[in-house]
């Protein structure tokens, strides 16, 4: 059974007097454990699509099922609970909380989103930090880390709640080429280790080549799903 199924999905919004159709009639499905990229130029609708999959935004029309849930019907609070239970996020700007240490950043969702016991939290956080190779930096603050290290922490934070799905919007945009590849490799290895589905958006051809399935977006329309060779 597909993890994500979208049919006839569209999203439009009002920009002044103009109605902008950000996503048009998108139909696709993504299997569990897939490593998927949405590619396309700036303004093609990648982020809008990821936002809808991530229950941050609702479709204007069409159907969207994520982890067997019709996410279009969720209200503000239900969407937050759903995200907390099923989805991890990796952001272009890492979005780590500056006053918290690496350890505390990764622990944050287990306190604020899922209420784990201290002992369980410690075990889970240390496992994730070890998996992303950041256990030595656990006590450091985000401002003491490089961009690549920050993104590793962000990936650990996205996986710490045992998410079935991680959405990464341009995760390598702020990284140099070598670091970007290391981050993508890390995401792949995490996919193997935790059987998590990774969906990321990018417009970097080298990064998009790493995806197993690529959806190309042009002006809000999926022009072709491509399986990697």
């Amino acid at each position, binding site marked *: 059974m597909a993890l994500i199924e979208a049919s006839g999905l569209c999203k439009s919004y009002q920009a002044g007097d103009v109605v902008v159709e950000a996503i048009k009639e998108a139909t696709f499905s993504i299997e569990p454990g897939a490593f998927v990229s949405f590619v396309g130029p700036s303004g093609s609708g990648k982020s809008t699509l990821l936002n809808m999959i*991530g229950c*941050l*935004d609702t479709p204007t029309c069409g159907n969207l099922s994520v982890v067997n849930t019709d996410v279009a019907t969720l209200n503000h609070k239900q969407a*937050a609970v759903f*995200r907390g239970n099923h989805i991890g996020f990796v952001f272009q700007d890492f979005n780590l909380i*500056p006053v918290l240490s690496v350890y505390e950043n990764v622990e944050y969702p287990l*306190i*604020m*989103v899922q209420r784990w016991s201290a002992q369980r939290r410690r075990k889970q956080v240390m496992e994730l930090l070890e998996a992303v190779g950041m256990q030595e930096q656990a006590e450091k603050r985000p401002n003491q880390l490089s961009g690549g290290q920050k993104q590793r922490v962000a990936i650990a934070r996205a996986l710490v709640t045992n998410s079935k799905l991680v959405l990464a919007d341009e995760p390598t945009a702020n990284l140099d080429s070598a670091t970007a590849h290391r981050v993508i490799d890390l995401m792949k290895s995490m996919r193997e280790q935790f059987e998590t589905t990774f969906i990321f958006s990018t417009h970097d051809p080298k990064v998009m080549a790493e995806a197993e399935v690529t959806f190309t977006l042009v002006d809000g329309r999926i022009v072709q799903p491509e399986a990697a060779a």
Partner: protein
Amino acid sequence: MINILKIAAKNLLRYRRRTFLTSLLITIGIVAVLLFMSLSGSFRALMVGQITDSMLGHLQIHKKGYVASIDNLPLTLNMKPAMVAKVTDYLQHDKDVAAWSPRIKFGAMFSNFKETTSIRLNGVDPQREVATCPLLPGRLIQGNHQQPLVAPGKIVIPELIAKGLKVKVGDSVVLVATNRDGSVNGNTFTVSGVLEGISGPGGRDGYMDINDARNLLRLQEPELSEVAIRLKPGVSLNKAFKAMRQHFAQITNQQGKPVFEVHTWEALSPFSNIAKMIDMLDTFIKVMLVAIVLISIMNVMLMAVYERIHEIGTIAAIGTTPSRILMLFVSEGLLLGILGAVIGIIISVATIAIINARTLTFSFGRQDNLVLQPTISLNEILVISLIVVLVAVLASLQPAWKASRMNPITALRHF
């Protein structure tokens, strides 16, 4: 909740200077309130204590119309024996009454054989008077505290007359008084004590034995000008007053009008207005504290929300529910309030202890060297702390609500 508080504390520490300044403002507010309350409370308690425990008692009973003419000390408005009997019968059976003192109040001419002046006098039963006004002997600045307040043939005079006429304990003086019929009578007395003058009605009166007063005034019957009443500790003044007023209102003359009037010390002393003003100031300064806490915390929390919109977007995106975001920001306001309250209370208690150790004196009216002994009860500290903490939470609710309702996408786009 503990974990949310820990995160909230870390968030407060990211803007140390702002947190420090806000806490300082709350601290200053609390110190001002607690010090004012302790000092004004001490002043109020001192003055009320003087008035009730050395002059007026808690309640007084007079013949109807006496208080309106009290400045003239009218002998014509004394309570007759039948009325006195009704009053004493009631007071003997009232469980709220600790003691009561019958008094004859009158004006007289006071002479040291060289000079003459007017004097206001209370004819009292010394034992009953001291039981009703236990601080009265403490006002003796000359004379023997161990003996009865005043013995037959003796007189205790106010400090001002003693100084003005250069009279001291042991001196003979003459009192000349006009009785109800207008005839004049004079007797010789020996000064047995000099009383410190205090503010308020009766604060510069002299005292003599009630039988001496009757003789001087040639009163044929055991009539009284007033009865001062002391209530038992813990008895509500208002409750006792209402019960007494209700009882005596039912005793009427042939025309069906009440023959007695009952007053609390508050109705008899102008200091009660000062006490009310102190209470008003207390309330006013508490309102100021509420305003300080409300404005400072609301301001700092609004700033915090505005500066952390992107971060709010992040925590909302990763699944933090609106209620948890609300709790996080309310916790920050709560911690700010608690921090300011704790420091403020420590500074206030220390300052009160220092004031008490150094003996702070002040003058009021013609009284000098009154010692202020500020105290603050645990109850008052708890009430002020509760006010501060509640207002801190209230002040952070609006910014926290705003943060919790943010659209994650809009917030994530904010830099």
